[in-house]
C-alpha cells in the first residue's frame, strides 16, 4: 500500500507492506537511523518517537497507522546547527555511554520539559520509567535532563559553541 507520512516537517510517500512497523519505516525506508530498534517488545523505549506530538514506542505502531499523521524523531532536535538543550545536557552531564538508549531518552525528555519545564528528579525518573539503559545506571540521564531544564532559556549560540 502507499502511505504518506510527515516526518520532521517533510512529507514522504512510500509503497510499503501494511505489516511494516513504524520503526522500520523510519530506519529502512527513509533512512532516519537515529531512532533505534532494540527489544521489539515495547519494553526498552529506544524506539520512542513523537506521533502527533505525543511520545510512542514506534516498534508497536504500524507505519500504515502513521499515514496522514506527523512524526518527530531525534534528528529534529538539533535545529540549524544548534543542539537542543536536552542534547547538550546529555553531553555536559555524560548522559550516555554506548548511546543505544539515547534517542528514545531524548525524545521523552524533550516532551517532558515541554509540558513540565521544571521537573523534580522523581518526575524525571517516572517519565523515563518505560525506557531501559544498560550503561549509565540512569543517574547521569536524570542529571542531563535537569541540566536541560536549568539551561532551556539560554541564547542559542552557547549550544552552537559546543557543536563547533
Amino acid at each position, binding site marked *: 500500500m502507499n502511505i504518506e507520512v510527515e516526518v520532521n516537517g517533510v512529507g514522504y510517500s512510500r509503497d510499503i507492506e501494511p505489516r511494516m512497523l513504524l520503526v522500520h519505516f523510519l530506519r529502512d525506508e527513509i533512512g532516519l537511523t537515529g531512532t533505534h530498534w532494540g527489544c521489539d517488545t515495547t519494553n526498552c523505549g529506544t524506539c520512542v518517537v513523537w506521533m502527533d506530538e505525543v511520545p510512542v*514506542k514506534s516498534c*508497536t505502531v504500524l507505519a500504515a497507522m502513521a499515514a496522514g499523521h506527523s512524526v518527530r524523531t531525534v534528528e529534529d532536535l538539533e535545529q540549524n546547527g544548534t543542539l537542543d538543550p536536552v542534547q547538550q545536557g546529555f553531553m555536559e552531564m555524560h548522559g550516555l555511554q554506548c548511546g543505544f538508549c539515547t534517542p528514545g531518552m531524548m525524545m521523552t525528555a524533550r516532551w517532558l520539559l515541554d509540558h513540565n519545564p521544571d521537573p523534580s528528579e522523581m518526575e524525571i525518573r*517516572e517519565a523515563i520509567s518505560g525506557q531501559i539503559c544498560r550503561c549509565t545506571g540512569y543517574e547521569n540521564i536524570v542529571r542531563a535532563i535537569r541540566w536541560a531544564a536549568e539551561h532551556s532559556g539560554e541564547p542559542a549560540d552557547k549550544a552552537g559553541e559546543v557543536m563547533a
Partner: protein
Amino acid sequence: MQVPAPVDYERALSLDHAIELLERYGPDAKIIAGGHSLLPMMKLRLLQPEVLIDLNNVTDLGYIKVESNEMRIGALTRHSELLESPIVSEHFPIISEAERVIADPVVRNRGTVGGSLCQADPSEDLAAVFSALKASVVLRGSKGTRVVPVREFHSGPYSTVIDPGEILTEIRVSLSSPCGSAYKKVERRVGDWAIAAVGVVLRVSNSRADDVGIGLTAVGAEHYCAYEAEEFLVGKELSEETINECARIAAENCNPSADQRGPVDYKRHLVEVLTFRALGKAVARCKGGSQ
C-alpha cells in the same frame, strides 16, 4: 526481528464505517486500537488476523464526560487521558491509582480503555477496576446496540461476549454509588503486569457497608470479582475485624496459578494483604479522610 505476518490494513473513518468494515471482512478481521496488546501477539503469531481495521482515526470515540449521572468513557480514550482527567481524579481514586501503575507513561499514551477491556488479559488492571465499579460497556454492531455489565462481559482468559461484528464504544460508571475507593497492586518492577492487584469500591451508611465492589486481577478470579468477600461485607459494620475477615475470604476464594511471578500461596497472601489495605484506604476516604 519480530514483525507481524502479512496482513491487510483498512482505516475506519467513522464508527459506522468501522462496523461496516467488520461486517465486510467477517471474523478474520480485527479492530486495532492502541495496538499495544494486539501487535505484540501478532509478532509472536499468537494471532494472525487477515485484516486490521484501524480505529484510531475515529477520534470521536475518545472522550470522558458526565451524562445521566454516569461517567462515560469513550473506548478510544488512552490510559494517559484517564490518568489526567479531573472527573476521574475527583470521583474515582481507584481508577487514578490503577492507571499510575499500568505499564509506563509512553505505553499509556497509546493503549486504550476499550482495548484493555476487549483484550481480557487475565492480568488486566482496568478489568478489575471496572468490575469493582460495577460498570457497564456499550457494544455496537450492525444489528444494534446493547449495554452489558462488565461482570458479564469477560467470559474467561482472553475472551469476552463481544460478537465478531461488534465494537465496544463506551464504558459507563455510575456517579452515585461510590463514596470511597482504592487500588493496590504488587508488581515485580515498575511498569510490569501485576503479580496480584485488588480494587475496592465502598458505599457506607451509618458506618455499615451498604454497597461493596471488590475486583481482583492476575489471580484467576471469575469476572475479576471477589463475590464471596463482597457478600460477606455488605451490611456489616466496617471494623478492623470485619475488614480482616473480608480480606481472608477474598484470598481463600480466588484461584491463582503458579508462574514466573510467584507460587500460589504467595499470590493468595498478596490478595489478603492488598484487600485489607485497599479496604482500609477506601473506608478512610468514605470518612472524608486523606486521598
